[in-house]
């Protein structure tokens, strides 16, 4: 027996965002319900627990004004949104309803916002280099088409700028089409949203963008649905319409806090710092929707932004995210304070899919070795810098001084660049060689003889001289 289409009058209990009803025997788990109060207000909800004796409903939106005489209608369906190419250029709220004053979407299809897991055997391995024009990313943490690479940031750092710059500049070399952008704001301030809108407008991307906005003053509970709604739209654009989609969701920290709030309302046993034990699986169900599928042209490249509470990398939010995503771009307060934009600290950053996206035919044959060497040398340089704090620069050995200088130039010349500056991969790698050439060749242990001969500036000059 189902209660599909039936309306019940009267609810037994309201507890935060949860509504409890008794005597509704046939409610389906995760079924969507509509709740109407006597004064005509309407709420959306979803069945969280479906029992013969008791049904627990999670209400989307603020439950203020809900009373025990409310009517509850069971729709018989899980949470779905309409999808079609008409979504492009439009703005929606966290439940997928248009909020730009435009008409409703004519749906090609209705899709469950939770999606379904991609069959691992049907995934296509992401190995196509995306040139973002940002040296620190292209050279050291190359992004590939279909990757999920979050930005780990802190309040006050220019993560929005970095994400906007990637959105503006990203291309797949050799492909004419630009990325379509699905942007979701989760619990964001209005001026942050405005910044992104202006950026998209400025570089003419608004017509190939879909915006989902849940602002700081919008219902907390809709923060749970916003990323899912956005990814459902992205999946349609990517895997049905064949577009390359770049998904930017900010700020995932607000999402996790909403999840914690909800979990506590449900009286669940908390895990670390009060976050629910299933947060890993919950985040995975969002992040794993990025990727490519065999036999389908489109892709979802996913760049979520999260602010680390207290800049703490071991906090459950960045920690669990790092275990799911394919690396991270780490923004550093110290670099920012020293005036370096983008303040990307490459040492704790990583791109797991870089290895297959670079090299001959993709970027350049020396790319892997150069980036390995830069990592090793920069890490030596930062070690030397720490030492300066203790023994002073005079206490350093000549070798350590050299690495100190290397680190300085690496930050100033390689990492730092303008918000509107776009460097192609060739330029990025050439800057790298310039800086590496201040080190003696014996120190370049991560680079093979062959590569040194071909690319080391000094050897190239020597080879030219010999040729003449």
């Amino acid at each position, binding site marked *: 027996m189902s209660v599909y289409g039936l309306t019940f009058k009267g609810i037994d209990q309201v507890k935060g965002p949860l509504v409890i009803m008794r005597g509704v*025997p*046939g409610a389906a*788990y995760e*079924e969507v319900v509509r709740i109407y109060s006597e004064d005509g207000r309407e709420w959306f909800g979803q069945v969280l*627990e*479906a*029992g013969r*004796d008791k049904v627990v409903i999670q209400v989307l939106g603020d439950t203020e004004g809900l009373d025990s005489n409310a009517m509850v209608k069971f729709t018989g369906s*899980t949470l779905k949104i309409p999808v079609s190419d008409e979504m492009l250029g439009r703005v929606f709220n966290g439940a997928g309803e248009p909020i730009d004053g435009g008409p409703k979407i004519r749906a090609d299809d209705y899709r*469950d916002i*939770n999606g*379904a*897991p*991609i*069959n*691992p*055997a*049907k*995934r296509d*391995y*992401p190995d196509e280099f995306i040139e973002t024009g940002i040296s620190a990313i292209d050279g050291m943490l190359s992004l590939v088409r279909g990757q999920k690479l979050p930005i780990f940031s802190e309040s006050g750092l220019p993560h929005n700028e970095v994400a906007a710059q990637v959105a503006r500049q990203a291309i797949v070399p050799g492909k004419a089409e630009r990325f379509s952008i699905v942007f979701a704001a989760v619990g964001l301030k209005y001026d942050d949203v405005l910044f992104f809108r202006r950026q998209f407008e400025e570089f003419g991307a608004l017509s190939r963008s879909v915006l989902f906005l849940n602002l700081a003053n919008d219902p907390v509970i809709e923060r749970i649905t916003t990323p899912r709604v956005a990814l459902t739209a992205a999946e349609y654009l990517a895997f049905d319409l064949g577009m390359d989609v770049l998904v930017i969701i900010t700020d995932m920290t607000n999402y996790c806090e909403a999840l914690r709030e909800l979990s506590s309302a449900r009286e*669940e*046993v908390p*895990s*670390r710092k009060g976050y629910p*034990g*299933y947060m*890993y*699986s919950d985040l*995975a*169900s969002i992040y*794993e929707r990025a*990727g490519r*599928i*065999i036999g*389908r042209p489109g892709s979802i490249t996913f760049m979520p932004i999260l602010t680390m509470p207290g800049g703490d990398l071991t*906090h459950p939010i960045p*920690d669990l995210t*790092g*275990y799911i995503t394919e*690396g991270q771009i780490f923004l550093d307060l110290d670099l920012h304070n020293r005036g370096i934009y983008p303040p990307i600290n490459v*040492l704790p950053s990583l791109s*797991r*899919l870089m*290895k*297959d996206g670079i090299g001959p035919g993709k970027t350049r044959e020396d790319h*892997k070795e150069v980036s390995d060497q830069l*990592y*090793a040398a920069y*890490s030596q340089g930062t070690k030397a810098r720490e*030492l300066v704090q*203790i*023994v002073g620069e005079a*206490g*350093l*050995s000549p070798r*350590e001084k050299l690495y100190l200088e290397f680190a300085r130039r690496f930050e100033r010349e390689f990492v730092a660049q303008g918000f509107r500056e776009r460097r192609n991969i060739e330029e990025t790698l050439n800057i790298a060689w310039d800086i590496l050439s201040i080190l003696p060749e*014996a120190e370049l*242990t991560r680079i*093979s003889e062959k590569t040194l001969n071909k690319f080391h500036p000094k050897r190239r000059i020597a080879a030219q001289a010999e040729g003449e």
Partner: protein
Amino acid sequence: MSELVYESKGIIVHIKGPVVEAEGMRGAKIREVVYVGEERLIGEIVRIEGDKAIIQVYEPTGGVKAGEPVERTGEPLSAELGPGLLGQVLDGLGRPLEVIAEKAGGPFITRGIKAPTLPRDKKWQWTPLVKPGDDVVAGDVLGTVPEGSVTHKIMLPPTIEKAKVIEVLPEGDYTIEEPVVVVEHIGGKEEVKMYHKWPVRTPRPFKEKLAPVELLVTGQRVIDTFFPIVKGGTSAVPGGFGTGKTVTLHQISKWADADVVVYVGCGERGNEMTDLLHTFPKLVDPKSGKPLLERSVLIANTSNMPVPAREASIFMGITYAEYYRDMGLHVVLTADSTSRWAEALRELSSRLEEIPSERGYPAYLPDYIASFYERAGRIKVRGRRDELGSVAVIGAVSPSGGDLNEPVTQHTMRYVGAFWALDKDLAFKRHFPSINWLRSFSKYTGGLKEWWIKNTGHDMMAYRDKAMDLLQRASSLEEVARVVGEAALSDENRLVLLSAELIKEGFLVQNAYHEVDTYCSPKKQALLLKTLLEFYDRARPIIDAGVPISRIAEMKSLGLLRRLKFVPEEEFENAVKEAIAQLEAEISSLLAEVR
């Protein structure tokens, strides 16, 4: 004696995520598999209260209603064991992902799909080894079929202790559903097919467990030389994200000198499984000359797939491993990651409203971890044959916040023989594998001295101790240098630092993506470490003679030594000779200078 008649259908009364309560289930058994709801979702009974059963469902339960039926099967969750496992990519319940894709009609996994693990229509080339009239016992080989890179032995299943063969199909091609042998035992006649089912939570029986003594060569220098694992041994790889757990496990799955590899991707990234699926068919097993995929069983239950199936996937994997072990083969099982598996347990425990212990994990977590690692081992197989088989288990651990004091890491440490602690600082420096040599351990080193001498002609364990000594000394010197600066150390001490650096760069760091460096044979490992140690032995006296450390550090031969690891095996001995010759020449000229 339990009643023979049971109600085969119950009624759902409550649904909360993957936990479903049903009534009318009298006679149901704990761990019995049931089909839940109209869509017949796969579930397992985890608790019984009167005629109520609590069921954990392995598929998403959205849309399921109270009042829908629950169908019983009378069987526990079992693995299908027989030819056709190798080369397969399965989900956590043993369903082939390709078949799921076919039945779902698309790249997304839908619900309620039933798919047997082994292909039913494929024919296998059967060679009988018994004839009518033979007496056989459990574990005896009835015949063989070739499968991938192994000879698959069809054995009398453990459920038949003793029997007489009465019929045998002649040599020929048969499917697994055809009874190739008919036996007679106390219970009557029984048809034996090429496959049987085995409950995944029950360890498969064997004759005797033996001490593991043979090195499991992984081709990874820091593992084989410093923290080795043996055939039938256990090891854990804990490390925060980005420290290289997955790459380490992938490397072992690719290069370990095992006959069969079972890889369980448990709650991890989808693209990592895709990576394996892309590389395994291309890589060739050096022993058999066949693609690596043909010696592998891959289980993929990625992080976005249902959580309860994650819990089952590890048991599914270890059961496959034990089955091949019973044929007298050496098997390696790698599980990435056991933390996700333990978290699945925590999630279910919490939904069952059990009283939580440390960090929300149930109090029985240690038993649970032990029940997995204890299924590893080197054993004498059953049946009347003198064969040994082994299962080595290597589990990744993903400690939250990189904190090795969390319960899963701590309990795992108690049950494993080797422990490879991955280090964030090393990873940041791109020192991979980022196995920290001061915090890792292996209990197997003691027994391996003979193995190295026999197989490489080198007393590798002596080299190891010497290198470890240098690394330890360097580590405490670094502490000092951090305060006073390296320049303030004596030349003698700075030579220790330089030599340790050489061992790190030239031996410990190994590039998984370098054509040559990705695998290093034991012979090459031994000669390489011996050569690198010679640097210290030869440079030490000239420091006393008054050669400044700065001149030693500039030697060209140092660069040669650092890059020796990139030299292919066949040119390696010559390259070593050249490097040593250059080292000697440079040392004598430095000595000449000071004199």
